[in-house]
């Protein structure tokens, strides 16, 4: 047993951190938040040049084939820097779905483009309020023709293609759900950008009107593929959340050391110290759960579903906890537009619901723990 990243992986983390601190300072995040760009295209190209987009994509499909542990390391840094790019939708969701279920031709078409930074992908799953479930999917697929509306779709307004969850049966079972791959430039696709709490990553509504689409994976296995994609993304986004939580904790700590009130550093007051200690505790528990998830993801272990749910819940709670208390430590200044606290608060709460909210993952965790206990 060795429960840590290797020296090479830590070196990659340092490299990613250096790159992002230079290319993705808070003002780059703000440029997107302020609406000056839909995402940071220069950063996106830089990430491709560094090989970060294709780190888990096999060499045969244009990636470096390094692996998922390496992707976890990079994900943490993306979260720490609040990178305003469609990374999670493209790399965790679309690329993972393609790698799990795509045909050779589909992989050849899209994976090299993802690795090169020339294609943005997404997963079109949600249809309004509520958590992922087979019943929530109303968009229909009839003989490969899609009709319906997806909302919210992460980075949907900038994506070149989408993996779309559709209903092609009426048995009321999971097997009614199939996945399709849609080139979003084709006729019948209409996208509309949606205002959201974290504009550093866009959300969109996509309307499909008689769109001819190709299947991704066997019909009737859509839901099971989708579940596996969500589990994998849960671990990866978990690392983004851990990176964000750590940075929010650091910001709070630094401010507590810097700011003087009542003639003392505010970090010398126990009420403040204890708040920061609790932030450390939640960030640490989340990191450890994510490490377990990283191991399960990288080895495709049978523990992955349970590990992914644990990582997801823990990381969601930790990032929310650290982001909100970072503002609290900063006092009134923390609520100003100029301070970066709100950027983390926005991202924490957007990520918290973006992959199915806590209640979905709590349900999933309990079901999976029961299955294990019963086995």
């Amino acid at each position, binding site marked *: 047993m060795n429960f840590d990243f290797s020296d090479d992986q830590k070196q990659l983390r340092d490299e990613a951190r250096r790159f992002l601190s230079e290319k993705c300072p808070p003002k780059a995040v703000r440029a997107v938040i302020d609406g000056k760009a839909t995402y940071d295209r220069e950063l996106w190209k830089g990430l491709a040049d560094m090989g970060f987009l294709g780190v888990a994509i096999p060499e045969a499909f244009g990636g470096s084939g390094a692996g998922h542990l390496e992707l976890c390391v990079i994900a943490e840094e993306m979260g720490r820097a609040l990178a305003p790019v469609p990374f999670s939708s493209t790399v965790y969701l679309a690329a993972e779905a393609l790698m799990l279920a795509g045909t050779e031709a589909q992989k050849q078409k899209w994976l090299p483009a993802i690795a090169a930074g020339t294609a943005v992908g997404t997963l079109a799953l949600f249809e309004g309020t509520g958590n992922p479930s087979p019943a929530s999917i109303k968009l229909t697929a009839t003989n490969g023709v899609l009709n319906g509306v997806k909302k919210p779709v992460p980075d949907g307004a900038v994506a070149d293609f989408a993996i779309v969850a559709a209903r092609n049966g009426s048995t009321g079972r999971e097997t009614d759900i199939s996945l399709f791959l849609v080139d979003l430039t084709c006729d019948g696709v209409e996208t509309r950008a949606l205002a959201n709490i974290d504009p550093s990553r866009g959300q969109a509504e996509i309307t499909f009107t008689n769109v001819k689409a190709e299947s991704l994976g066997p019909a009737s296995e859509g839901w099971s593929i989708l579940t596996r994609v969500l589990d994998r993304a849960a671990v990866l986004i978990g690392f983004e959340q851990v990176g964000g939580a750590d940075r929010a904790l650091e910001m709070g700590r630094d401010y507590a050391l810097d700011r003087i009130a009542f003639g003392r550093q505010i970090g010398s007051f126990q009420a403040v110290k204890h708040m920061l200690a609790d932030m450390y505790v939640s960030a640490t528990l989340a990191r450890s759960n994510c490490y377990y998830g990283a191991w399960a993801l990288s080895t495709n272990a049978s523990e992955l579903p349970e590990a992914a749910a644990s990582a997801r819940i823990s990381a969601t709670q930790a990032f929310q906890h650290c982001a909100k208390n970072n503002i609290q430590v900063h006092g009134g200044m923390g609520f100003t537009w100029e301070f970066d606290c709100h950027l983390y608060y926005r991202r924490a709460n957007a990520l918290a619901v973006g992959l199915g909210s806590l209640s979905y993952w709590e349900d999933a965790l309990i079901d999976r*723990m029961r299955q294990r206990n019963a086995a």
Partner: protein
Amino acid sequence: MNFDDTPQEAAFRCEARAWIAANAPKEYEDELKRASLGRIQLKGGNILEVAKAWQKKKAEAGWAVPHWPKDYGGRGASPIERVIWQQEEGVFGKLGALFIIGHGMCGPTMMAYAAEDQKRHYLPPLASGENIWCQLFSEPAGGSDVAGLRTRAEKDGDDWIINGQKIWTSGAHYSDFGILITRTDPNVPKHKGLTMFFLDMKSAGVEVKPIKQANGQSEFNEVYFTDVRIPDAQRLGAVGDGWNVSLTTLMNERMAIGANMATGVPELFEFASSLMLEDGPAIDDRAVRSKLASWAVRASGLKYTSFRAISALSKGERPGPENSIGKLVAGTMLQDVATYALDLQGAAGVLSGPDDAEAAGKFQAMLLRSPATRVEGGTDEILRNIIAERVLGLPGDIRVDKDVPFNQIPTRGR
């Protein structure tokens, strides 16, 4: 990142598993499984005797305290092998509760500070459970303020004469030896005038009085010292350096008790699976699931945090202040889990008798014991201070007694 055993670890696991299968006291397995946290009573036998017999058997085969050096009663196992042993020992590990303080805190302190011949003399019987050790630190006047202690040690020829009182000493009533921190110089600031010793608990002048606790049990004691003589050869570390010696003990303590703490979560999961509410099993209820999931990820987070600490340890790093997280999280969780389990039981949650209460009164016992978990070995507040100051680098608390000679520090508030 690798969660699987290496070939050597797998071989170690295999050997441990086979030995446990052949030797563990299986007649107590069911009772140990059902036992409530921190309170083991065996209908079929005296817990002290059963625990000592199991420890002795382990010692004879080299499995007592596997991570200790061979010369001191261990087998020189790696930190990871130690965890593998704990995993394999499973429920029988509960029998080791009596030895935790000796093995986790006194032993490492002896190893760091005792003379070589003393280590060879005292450590093997400590490892084998023949001798039980206790840790004489807390005092009525110094709870969280450990260094505020008043038990005096005065030099008399080659001996020291001890007078004073300790409190909250776990297991003193059945302990053979103890490590003891005393004040040897009241004229200097409090951290500078302390000295550490070890002593035979049967020494003349040592009196142990069990304390009846809020939960009705008596694990802790008051210990009185009246002109107790300790040879200077039983001093651990230099005169006046007792605080540094005690920090070794306390750091090991946090590692020892933090790494493997009960959280109550597996028990609550099992209970929620079997308990029927109006609409079906409790575990199908939305609100129950949410609570359970939140606690489950805290418990798994703790488990993998301790695995990360062990990975660091096996690379040669020392246990650090970040290990304070274990007891801080587990202690609070234990209390919250117990409270919630009673809530699920409705009005019957008030019942505690093994035959009448749900789950044989396990959660009622947990509820009544858990306040101590949040206090013993460092309160939640002290542990948060440690994390804030020594992990996050925040300023220390303002200490009005810092540079004041100990005998000039006020002793009453009004």
